[in-house]
């Protein structure tokens, strides 16, 4: 068996999860890329990327993006003067209402204190300045950029008078309006106030007036925690949950915080999700599968699938919940799958040839659950029903076996080998 995988039972921490020695085309994004995706959604703000020329060249795009390019002199003597001069130019020419400074690997290695500089700029120019750290060598997860960018939004907020409004953290208004949660809130007369990150600098400044934050994406959790700490705003976590009971609990928690009775439509949706699961239980029981990234927390999803009688053979994830996690114990109670942080195309193919899974779930190759996006359009029981129906449609594995026929496999391998 390849060194790229280990048995789940042998893993004690995220560091033990094996990773391939090299990654080919389709590597994970840099957190800089995902951080920029968030900061550009904050209207009236600009982003200043502090890094080498390569970072600046690759992340270019949009008229709210600026760069400070570091050279060897800055590495040796620090980038304070260069950054200060660039910031001054930026303020004189563009007069932005707020600035996100994204620091990349090199200033993080050299240890330039950009946070302190940002504080100086903030008082000097009288605008909000937030620093987003995106040191890629500390993580393999591109979502770190989203989390840090969302977390940095706290620096744009001011202390304001409280009202009864509710913030949505992790999703834009347009996407949110299509969700089940939006319909439920509407039914009880709750209109969300500010959607972070799809808001303006002025709206962000007023975000602290809310009485509750609803977190609809796990990447916004850091911001919710910071807001709770600084502005005493409680939050309800409504990120993707595969268990109907867990989703129902989230709704109960929400309505408890809103001090309103839970509408009947929630119970109806709960029953519908449970029925959908019961309907597929017999058909998917005994199905073996490989699981890559989905919109659901990996181990919660696998525990759920194990309880349905499915058999995980390989789990691809950089996340590890800890040895005492209930989800992990559930998975280990039923099986002992292989685990890998990431997996090369060749190894994936070799494992498929050997283990012959009936189903691929998640990732780019699989079905049964879309890839995790930043702010999924499905929130609540809808997400469960969608997932369940997508795996039930492919339980025979016929489509997968066809897609990975021996001919196609050998052709693909040949394409990457040189003679």
């Amino acid at each position, binding site marked *: 068996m390849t060194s790229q995988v280990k048995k789940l039972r042998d893993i004690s921490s995220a560091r033990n999860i094996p*990773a391939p020695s090299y990654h080919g085309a389709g590597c994970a994004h840099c957190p800089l890329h995902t951080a920029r995706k968030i900061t550009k959604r904050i209207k009236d703000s600009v982003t200043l990327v502090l890094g080498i020329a390569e970072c600046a060249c690759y992340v270019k795009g949009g008229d709210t993006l600026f760069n400070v390019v570091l050279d060897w002199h800055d590495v040796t003597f620090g980038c304070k003067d260069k950054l200060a001069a660039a910031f001054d130019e930026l303020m004189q020419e563009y007069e932005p209402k707020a600035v996100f400074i994204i620091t990349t690997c090199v200033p993080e290695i050299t240890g330039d204190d950009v946070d302190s500089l940002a504080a100086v700029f903030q008082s000097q120019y009288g605008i909000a300045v937030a620093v987003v750290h995106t040191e890629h060598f500390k993580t393999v997860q591109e979502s770190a950029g989203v989390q840090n960018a969302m977390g940095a939004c706290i620096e744009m907020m001011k202390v304001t008078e409280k009202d009864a409004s509710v913030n949505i953290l992790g999703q834009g208004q347009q996407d949110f309006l299509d969700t089940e949660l939006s319909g439920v809130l509407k039914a009880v007369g709750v209109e969300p106030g500010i959607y972070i990150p799809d808001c303006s600098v002025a709206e962000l400044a007023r975000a602290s007036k809310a009485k509750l934050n609803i977190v609809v994406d796990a990447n916004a959790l850091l911001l919710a925690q910071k807001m709770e700490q600084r502005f005493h705003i409680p939050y309800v976590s409504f990120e993707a949950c595969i268990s109907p009971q867990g989703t129902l609990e989230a709704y109960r928690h929400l309505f408890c915080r809103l001090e309103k009775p839970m509408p009947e439509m929630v119970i109806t949706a709960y029953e519908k999700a449970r029925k959908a699961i019961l309907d597929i239980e017999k058909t998917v029981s005994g199905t073996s599968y490989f699981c890559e990234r989905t919109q659901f927390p990996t181990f919660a999803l696998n525990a759920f699938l194990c309880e349905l009688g499915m058999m995980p053979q390989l789990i691809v994830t950089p996340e590890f919940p800890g040895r005492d996690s209930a989800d992990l114990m559930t998975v280990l109670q039923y099986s002992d799958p292989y685990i890998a942080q990431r997996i090369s195309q060749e190894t994936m193919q070799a494992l498929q040839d050997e283990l012959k899974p009936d189903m691929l779930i998640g990732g780019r190759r699989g079905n049964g659950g879309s890839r995790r996006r930043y702010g999924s359009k499905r929130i609540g029981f809808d997400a469960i029903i969608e997932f369940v129906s997508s795996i039930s449609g492919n339980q025979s594995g016929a489509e997968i076996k066809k897609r990975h026929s021996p001919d196609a496999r050998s052709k693909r391998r040949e394409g990457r080998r040189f003679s």
Partner: protein
Amino acid sequence: MSLIRFNPTPSDRMAALWLMLTFEDAVVLEYGPMGTTCFAERALKGMGLKVNRLFSTHLSEDDVVMGDVTRLEKALIEIDRDLQPKVIFVVPSAILTVTGADIAGVCHYMQLEVNAKLIAYDGGGFKGDYSTGLSDVYTLLTKELAGRESTPVPSTYNILGACAYAYKIQPDLQELEHLMDSTFGAKRLATLGLCDSTQDMKALGQASVNLVIRAEALPAAKWLKENFGTEYIYSAPYGYLGTLHFLEAVGTALGKEPDANVMEMLKGKINAAQNIPTSGKKMRVSIVGDYDVAVGIYGFLKSLGLKTEHLICNHSLGRIPQPTEDILFYQTERERITVLQGLHNQWVLADDVSLSICPADNARLCISAPAADQVETEESSPLMGIRGADFILERQRNEKDILLSALI
């Protein structure tokens, strides 16, 4: 004056990737975070490079802090075993350049463990801009991949100084090939910077003459002369007169008379080009681009009697031996923007970014990279040679009436 608003100048490391990712039978292994590779893959795909030959080791904090190179060693062994490339180029990321990882040392001892030839590039983006990178990597590739065979094949030539980043490089190479074939019956052996395989590079020492079309390839040409005795000609043939001089120099190096018909046609075109109406010569021109493109076109327009107000180089001039005094490289983007925004009623020949900065009352022609807004086809006109001069002259005549009417 350190704020970058538009495209930053690409670094030496990026230039290394442009040159190394042309080989079908080689792999480029980036020793650094995989996000850099992901970015590069997306950015370089549009340049026609073989991005599926680009791999990354990724890095953990431990590797950075403790200087552990096990990850690189394992990746080299696995790539050699899984993909069996002829060459593995190892390129460190900026982080490892800062921490001082000895990539060349690792490649030296790992060479005993793998079949592929290991070539390390030690620039992590801090050596300078892409001009520096091109110069260093042209030399590196030549030294490492040129074969030992030194018997020259008659009537053959190499082109030194091609690069996938250069605007209109493919039409330019076709035009050069056509010129050399029709004038001398000479055949191209290798194109340094755009070779399809490392095998093709072995022919570098066998040509009768090396044609250097970019100043950054001069050190490689000199190395080939020292080791194989191959003469080289540094001349990028822009304009009719430039092409004439180029062909005369090639004829001398090959010991062959240029084809009389081609030379007659060229002389005819030189005479015809002089007959621009006096009014057309009032047209003011500004040129921005890579050194050899900008200076070549500047010379052509000067021969037509046109006055160039600004001649700006897109990259530093440190690797250009004795650059012309007429050309300027602005250290800061602000200075450059000020000049470009001050251009009015001119014919501006530049890259796409510079053209986008110029006011709308200028006539524009893209001649240099970055050229993201341009569509290149196989039938695109070159900038070099006779067809290139025809194209530029045609554009000059089309634009002159518009510009002159604006001046009146």
